[in-house]
Every structure is written in structure tokens, then in C-alpha cells.
């Protein structure tokens, strides 16, 4: 029988130390996967499918649940997420992305370049009925497939091996790396099909920093995705609150929430409140509110009529009156944060010229236009309507719709004048001009087509130098001003209450809040 060796004096020491380190190691794991949850008053959950993102709330949620080739950091810079890098061909039309090694979906399934291709083609597939396929129609052959003359095979996306994705574009687009950060272009698991219930709360598989764990009452509970490309996020659990019993500020005071977007009306007093004021932060949101015209039907198929409506408005004065500190008058569809230097100057209001243009268009007075219907679903139209009535003599009826009804009507039968509150898809002027006004854009609700605009947009997309980009987009802006398919109205300012010690929320830009990069200081 072997003898049991005599235990040396240091052996207990080593055992204890090893035991401690094992415990410490497991404590470390639980600290990164658990700890203090973040309670975010986000509003009601919408879709879990990136193909059906309908509004800013959807963007905010799906950004936590899915990853794309690139991602936007908390200051708005693009970085490689699933892609460790990429190269661009000399003509700027071919991007070759190199994916990171050993990528996985949240259920452990390997994630390869074929999944990226499949995800993008799914968005482009007319059978999917995606809400924003036009985000990807800069890819060669994509628009043709969507219009029924091409095929999926002809779309310029190749996955020659598991870590390489080659994308051919219709034209050079220096904003493409930013574009693929948009959640619509994120990567969905192989189970994704065109059925409405392939993804569910109870059986969620994603690729982002968080995965859906459960629905606790009205609160969606997100837990850290241990397979996330950047590793599990520091905060182990996000409580995605749909509602609270009181107001957002009251819930913050009661410590029921840690992060909440507050109305400008509340922000005005919170800014001076000694106890709440330190937690109030302001961000120039990447949003624009604008009037759009149905340019396919009289009278707004006539540029002179649209210009008349534009020139009648003293937008700086009217927006100040209507929105107060909640917004500033917009001089462009593109929010200031996306104009590297300064925003374009506004055209001075000129009611006399507006009336002259109406006469030139064959309308002796505004009354000759017939009754104009304005849909006010997305903004307060009363000030503009008052001016159009007063200055142009137009007979106007004001209508609105529930948001879901409005979404349905816009592409099918847009009102003569409609109102939109738009959140930028990705940080580039192209995201506004292109997705709202290019002829094949799904959200070009007014049906505006302008060959010069298309040419100028291609020039702008090609530009890589910042100065060259600015000049190009100023030319685009000038064309939009001259043709007036839309009237930019205001740029929002958003206000947030942020619990002390929450790091990484950056500039709190709406639509770009990546909670995977957020941590508690303690």
C-alpha cells in the first residue's frame, strides 16, 4: 500500500492560494456577467428583426442585440466590429472586408462571411418586405433585384471564404463603412427567414453585446452575450423598461431608472434644479423634422409651388416660437453634427417672391390651389399653416394619424404635404439625402426625381477628402433648396438624465447609444 506522503508545511498554503484564485476567478466571471443592472426607460419594445426597424426605438433596441461589420463608438466614430478591417479598390467601388476569427452568434453557432451575405440579401429580398432595404441598394445589382429585373446572384456581395466579404458598389461611396454600421445591415442567425416569428423573446439568438433573456412584465431583460465580438459587455443586465408609473424625471428621482430621455419641457427646469441638474445632459440629436411634398401630383409637382411654400416661411422665427429650446431651425436635411464645419446658410424668407412664384405657376392666389391637406403626424404644423394661410391665402386642412397607420399610408398614398421626424441611419450626409430623396429610396415618400440631384449625390459619395466632401454636399444642398422637394423645419435637441458613474454613454446621440460600451464606474 503506498504511503501517504507527509504534507509539507507550504502545501496547505498553496492549496489555500489555489482555492482562493479559483474563487477569485469565478467571482471575476460573475462580476462581468452580473453586477449592477442598468435600468433604461426606453419605451415599448417594437420588432426584434432588423429588417423591420420602423422607428428610433427599434434602432435603439436592435443596436444592443445585433452586430454588423462596423459599429459607431460613443463619439460617432466608425470602427471595425465583426470586421477587423477592410480595403478599398482604387476606383472606390469594391470593399473587401476581413472578418475576425472565431465569431459566433449568441447561441454559439459560428458566424462567417456567408452569414453577412445572407443577412444582407435577406434585407434586399423583395419577399422579405424589409422597411429599409434602400440602405443597401448602393450595392451593385441590389436595386435591380428589388425592381424585379435582376437576381440575388447578381447582387455584388461575395463570400469567397469564411472570413472574407467582397462588396461591389454601384458607384464609389466613401460612407460605406459607416453605412454598414446601421442595424438594418447587422447579421442575423441562420434561422432568420421571412416568417414574422423566427425571432422571439423566449428563444432569442443574436450577435450584439446583449441577448434577450426574458420579458418581465413590461420590462425586457437583456443579458450580456458572452459570444459578443468585443467580449461580454461590462454591465451584465439591462432592464429595458417600457413604462413607469410616473414621469421619467420622477422615476429617476425615485431611482427606478438610471437612464432616461426627458422632454424639453422638463429639461428647462431640471437644468436649474440643484439635485437633478447635475444629471441632465444635452445632445444635438441626429434628427431632422421636415415637411415633404407629394411631387407626383398637382400642385406640388410644380417646383414653383413648392418654392412658394418654402419662401413664405421665416423658419428661424417660427421654430423658436413653436419649439423653444427643444429645437433649432433647420437649414438643411442634414443635422449640424454631420456638417464638419458649419451648416449651410438658410434662404431668407420672401413672401413677395413666394406669391410671384404662385402666380407664375398659374395660381393667381393661394385659394386657386384648392384645399391642401397637411398631415401633422410628426410635428406641430400650426405655425407654418398660419403663415401659409396668411401670406399665400391657401385653404388648408390639417390631419394626423396614429403612427402605425401613418407608416402604412406614406408609401402608398402620401398626403399632399406630410411631416416627418427622421433619425439619421448612419453618420453621413448621404444617409439623409440618399435615403430620403434618391429616386429609388423607399423613404422618398414624395416621389421626387431629379437627375442633377442624382449626379451630385454620386459626386458627393465619391469624395473622400473632408473639404471635397463638404463642397460636394453643399452642391447637393443647393440643388435641394432650388427644387424644394422638402422643407427642413427643425433639428432636435435631446435631453437625458444619466445616473452618476455611468461611463461610455458618450454624446447620447439618438440611435447610436451602444450599451455594450457602457459601464458603471464603481
Amino acid at each position, binding site marked *: 500500500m503506498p504511503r501517504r506522503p507527509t504534507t509539507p*508545511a507550504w502545501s496547505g498554503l498553496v492549496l*489555500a492560494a489555489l482555492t482562493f484564485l479559483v474563487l477569485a476567478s469565478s*467571482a*471575476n466571471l460573475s462580476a462581468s456577467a452580473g453586477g449592477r443592472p442598468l435600468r433604461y426607460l426606453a419605451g415599448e419594445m417594437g420588432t426584434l428583426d432588423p429588417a423591420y*426597424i*420602423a422607428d428610433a426605438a*427599434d*434602432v435603439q433596441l*436592435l443596436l444592443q442585440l445585433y452586430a454588423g461589420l462596423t459599429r459607431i*463608438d*460613443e463619439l460617432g466614430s*466608425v*470602427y*471595425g466590429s465583426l470586421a477587423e*478591417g477592410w480595403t*478599398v479598390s482604387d476606383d472606390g467601388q469594391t470593399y473587401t472586408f*476581413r472578418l*475576425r476569427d472565431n465569431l459566433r452568434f449568441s447561441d454559439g453557432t459560428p458566424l462567417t462571411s456567408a452569414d453577412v451575405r445572407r443577412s444582407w440579401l435577406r434585407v434586399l429580398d423583395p419577399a422579405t418586405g424589409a*422597411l*429599409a432595404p434602400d*440602405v443597401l441598394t448602393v450595392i451593385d445589382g441590389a436595386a435591380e433585384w428589388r425592381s424585379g429585373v435582376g437576381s440575388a446572384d447578381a447582387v455584388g456581395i461575395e463570400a469567397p471564404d469564411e472570413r472574407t466579404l467582397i462588396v461591389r458598389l454601384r458607384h464609389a461611396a466613401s460612407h460605406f463603412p459607416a453605412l454598414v454600421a446601421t442595424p438594418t445591415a447587422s447579421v442575423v442567425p441562420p434561422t432568420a427567414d421571412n416568417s414574422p416569428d423566427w425571432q422571439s423573446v423566449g428563444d432569442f439568438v443574436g450577435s450584439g453585446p446583449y441577448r434577450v433573456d426574458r420579458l418581465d412584465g413590461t420590462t425586457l431583460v437583456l443579458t450580456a452575450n458572452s459570444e459578443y465580438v*468585443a467580449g461580454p459587455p*461590462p454591465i451584465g443586465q439591462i432592464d429595458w423598461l417600457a413604462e413607469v408609473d410616473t414621469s421619467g*424625471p420622477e422615476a429617476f428621482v425615485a431611482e427606478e431608472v438610471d437612464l432616461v430621455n426627458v*422632454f424639453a419641457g*422638463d429639461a*428647462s*427646469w431640471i*437644468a*436649474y*434644479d440643484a439635485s437633478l*441638474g*447635475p444629471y441632465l445632459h*444635452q445632445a444635438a440629436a441626429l434628427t431632422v423634422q421636415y415637411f415633404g411634398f407629394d411631387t407626383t401630383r398637382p400642385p406640388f409637382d410644380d417646383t414653383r409651388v413648392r418654392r412658394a411654400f418654402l419662401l413664405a416661411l421665416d423658419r428661424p422665427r417660427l421654430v423658436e*416660437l413653436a419649439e*423653444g429650446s427643444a429645437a433649432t431651425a433647420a437649414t438643411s436635411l442634414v443635422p449640424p453634427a454631420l456638417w464638419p464645419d458649419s451648416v449651410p446658410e438658410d434662404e431668407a424668407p420672401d413672401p413677395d417672391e413666394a406669391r410671384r412664384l404662385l402666380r407664375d405657376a398659374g395660381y393667381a392666389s393661394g385659394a386657386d390651389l384648392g384645399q391642401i391637406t397637411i398631415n401633422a403626424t410628426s410635428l406641430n404644423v400650426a*405655425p407654418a*399653416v398660419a403663415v401659409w394661410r396668411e401670406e399665400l391665402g391657401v385653404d388648408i386642412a*390639417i*390631419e*394626423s*394619424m*396614429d*403612427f402605425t*397607420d401613418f407608416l402604412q399610408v406614406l408609401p402608398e*398614398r402620401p398626403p399632399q404635404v406630410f411631416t416627418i*421626424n*427622421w*433619425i439619421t*441611419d*448612419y453618420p453621413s450626409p448621404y444617409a439623409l439625402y440618399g435615403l430620403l430623396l434618391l429616386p429609388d429610396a423607399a423613404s422618398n415618400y414624395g416621389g421626387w426625381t431629379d437627375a442633377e440631384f442624382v449626379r451630385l449625390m454620386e459626386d458627393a459619395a465619391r469624395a473622400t477628402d473632408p473639404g471635397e466632401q463638404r463642397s460636394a454636399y453643399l452642391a447637393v444642398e443647393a440643388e435641394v433648396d432650388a427644387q424644394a422637394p422638402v422643407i427642413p423645419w427643425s433639428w432636435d435637441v435631446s435631453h437625458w438624465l*444619466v445616473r*452618476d458613474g455611468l*461611463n*461610455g454613454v*458618450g*454624446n*447620447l446621440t439618438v440611435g447610436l447609444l451602444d450599451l455594450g460600451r*457602457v*459601464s458603471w464606474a464603481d
Partner: protein
Amino acid sequence: MGRLSRVTAPLLLGGLLGGLLAVLVVAPAPSRAGGGFADLHADATFGVDMTFSATWTGAPPDRVELLLGFGGEERLVVPVELVSGQLDYRRDLADGYVPPNTPVAYRWRAIIGAEVTVSPERSLLYDDDRPGLDWRQARIGSATVHWYDANETIARRFGDLAGDAADAAADLLGHPLAEPIDIFVYDAREDFQGAVGPGAREWIGAAAYPHLRTVYMWLEAGSTAYLDTTLAHEVTHVVFHDATANPFHEPASWLNEGVATWSEVGNAATERDLVSLEARSRGGLMAFAALTDQFPIDARGANLAYAQGATMVDLIIHDFGTDAMAAIAEAYRFGATDEDAVLAGTGVSFQALRDEYFAAFGVTEPDPVEPLPLGRSDVPIPPQAGVEPAPSAEPQPAPRESQDAAWWLIIGFVALGVVFVATVVVRSRRAPRPAGGGER
């Protein structure tokens, strides 16, 4: 992604005449497309739902819509599916609060190609028809008072007081009450809270919806004197609404509430005491920029907001007379900003007026509170390769996991030392020790 953003303000929904089944049957509407609406019917239950129905004769339209108005000129358009010539629409009022006494205008619209057919517009009144509320009413001057149970006496007194309050407010603001008002007198707290809606603060004892020209009173809110002054406050809000109505800008809350509070007793003596106390010994006063929209949520802040509004109005009246108030109201009607309205009324800038106000209380106007800094993310960006992009140039802190691991390693080694020392100590304890020896 990104896309459209929902409008954040809740949509006010309408309802129909409470308790009474409002049934309207109209002749078929004239049709330009070979079809027409008939059998228009509407019904509602307070706080539950409202329903609309009609029949359509003729070829199926491309689209049928119900247009609903809730007291303003804007119409909410609701698509409704035509099923075998029948149109039915139900609005769940749990999705949106509607104040009682809201007039609801409705009409149907059918679209066939370029042809549009509409029914005549009908108007209904959404009333509070909850069981047990046996409403009676009486017209007293420019007010119609509504009460139930044994509250007729006080309701009638409210009618008299409302007339007095409206006259006083009209004198102050240089603008008459534009149309009659309704006053609903509630007995029980639950009844009152149900009427004023879920958004109302629990402590309020009365409320006015000026655009509906309606005031809601709760009899158990306080003493008779309190109720009387509160009624004057709410009626003044309606007159203020009339006197400043414009499509451009909502006047500052401090002015609206200040005028209403000042009008409770025709001065601001009580409020001045409160403001003086706050200025001297408590948390200080608030900037008027903080009082332009919503008031603070805490009781102290809310009370101070009302008091500052009233004392500012008192200052204007004292220095510039009631004509100044009328001129301010008139400026709003023509689309002035808050600053321009004050200037138009007093001839001095709002800044100068505020300086005088705060000086009178021995303080200066506060500045906004500096926000706490927002920390940069301490989550490392994964290593990049290739020609683009240029990730943040700022130096990144060590990854959290690495930091944590290093920390635990240090603890581990410290623990290792502790265990080593403990082992030595234990062994030494077991060793023979000299008598009388010991260690701590």
C-alpha cells in the same frame, strides 16, 4: 434603421356623450363615385371605448377612413376596413386619455381612385357617464355648472364666482371670456381623478382644460375658501387662453400660472412671503427660464414656481399697471415670443425685469447647474486592421477584464501571503512555547 420617430406627446382621444347612447342616423351622403355612407352610428363609454359604425353602398372603395376631431381643427384619420358593406371602428380609450366634455366631430371618407366621398360631419359630446354620477346642470351667467348628489348649492355658487372671476380676468388681460365655460363639480376624489386623467398630479384639487373651456372641481380638496380661490384660478386660465390664443407659441407657464395665482385674491401677498422665505433661508429662487414649460415635480419647487409667477405678475402690475398685462396678452395673440411680449407690455426688456425682480428679493437670478461629466467608455475597441477606419485616437484604458484580472491577481498574492503567515503562526502555536510567553 433610424427612420421615423414617433411623436412623443400622447394623442388626446375623444369620446362620446357619457351614458347616453348617441345614435345618429343620417341620410346617405351625396356620392360622386356611385356610393354613399348611411346609418352613421356612434357610441361611447367613459374611459372604456368609443365606437363608430356606418354602412357603405356602392362599389368597394380603395380606402375608407374615419376622421375624428377632438375640439380643435386637426382631424385624426383612421383607416377602417369595409366588410360586406359595413364599417365598424372601436377606439380603446385605455390607449389615450380623453377629458370629459370633449366635443368629438366625426365624418367618414371613401376614396376611389381620384374620387373622394365624404359623409356629413357630426358632432358629439363625450361626457362622464360613470355609474352613480347623476349629473344635473344649470346655466349661471357665462358658466354652465354640472353637479351630482346634493351639491347643487355649492355648484350654483361656483357659477356665480366663475362670472366674477372671468370678469376680473378680462379686466386684467384686456380680453373678454370668448365663449361660455362648463364647470363640473366632483364629490369624491376617485371621481375627480378619473375625470382629470392619469397624468394629473395626485395633489391637485381642480383642473382646467382651456381649449375645452371646461373646469373640473373636487369638493373635498380643501376648505370653502380654498375652493373659491381655486375656482377663480382655473377660470382665469380659460380667459388667459382666450386672451393669448395664437397658432405660434404657448405663453410661458410662469406667466399663465402667475396670472391665475395672482387672480385668486387679486394680489400676491402670500406668494411674496413664500418667495422671500425661499430667497432668504431655503434653497434659493428659480430662474424664469426654468419656469417656461413644465414646473418642477417636487412640492417645494412647484409651490415656488407658482409663487414666483404670481409675484412677477404683481411686479408688472405694480410698476406698469394692468394695461401692461393687456398689452402682453395682445402681443402673444400676434405671435410674440415671451421676451417680445414682456417688452411690448412693459417697455423694458425681460432681462431688466428679471434683474429688478431678483434684486427685490435680495438675490441674483440663478445659472443652470453644471452637469456632471460623462465618462468615456472604458470598453476597448477590438484591434483594427486594414486601411480604415481610424478608431478614436485617444488612449484607451486597459480592458476592464484585464483590469479586473490584475486586481484579483494582486488580491490572490496578498492572500497567498496571508495564508503563508497564518500557516507559520499556526505551526508556531503548535510548537512548544516558553512558559508565560504569548503573542498577539
